[in-house]
């Protein structure tokens, strides 16, 4: 399940849904990304996230499908927030349940890494009354290419 929303999400409810998702589940790996209290600029007070509605869901579904080909994936859930976010807010959740531990970890990390470099989200850092679009990090690109 893929959800793009401006409101906060309940990581616990996502975990419960993964756990209830069917027979054979032995492993659940989750990842949550939060707004760090130190950004690329000094004095960042919040973030603003823009996305490309429609394409976003399509890209993420493609990543889940790709992960499901490579690993045993019983269920995957991705939530990404958009709009205005405060420091320490939750931004993104990726959860995978699988029969096997290694598959759950690998699929969860793959989806998260690939999402960072291929899903159409753009982040703006807000510093008081100034705004600043965040540039893509080389390190994210490199992490995602590790999966190729």
């Amino acid at each position, binding site marked *: 399940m893929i959800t793009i929303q401006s409101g906060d999400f309940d990581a616990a409810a996502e975990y419960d849904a993964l756990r209830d998702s069917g027979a054979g589940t032995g492993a659940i790996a989750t990842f949550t990304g939060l707004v760090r209290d130190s950004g690329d600029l000094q004095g960042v007070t919040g973030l603003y996230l823009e996305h490309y509605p429609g394409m976003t869901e399509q890209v993420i579904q493609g990543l889940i499908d790709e992960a499901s080909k490579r690993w045993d994936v019983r269920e995957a859930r991705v939530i990404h927030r958009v709009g205005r976010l405060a420091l320490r807010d939750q931004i993104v959740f990726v959860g995978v349940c699988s029969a096997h531990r290694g598959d759950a970890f690998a699929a969860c990390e793959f989806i998260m890494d690939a999402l*960072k470099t291929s*899903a159409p989200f753009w982040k703006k850092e807000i510093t008081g009354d100034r705004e600043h*679009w965040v540039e*893509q990090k080389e390190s994210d690109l490199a992490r995602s290419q590790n999966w190729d």
Partner: protein
Amino acid sequence: MSDNTITVRFFARLREELETEELNVEALPGLTAGDVLAELASRGGRWAQLQGDQPVMIAINQTMAKAGSSVQGGDELAFFPPVTGG
């Protein structure tokens, strides 16, 4: 949609700096995404950045594409900066 126009959309920094969310261009035979980009860049001023130093990503009908990908009437073409989600 399969008329003779291509919808062009801009996101994030490009949307802001071009002060444009969306525009239409005419679908000529053999047109590529790169042709549209060059045509828009030739408007000069802020539009020149579409062929500037900073990379511009391309999607056609909400799928990542390349400058050489062809576009036709009814297509949704999008230009945006490298993504920075998560």
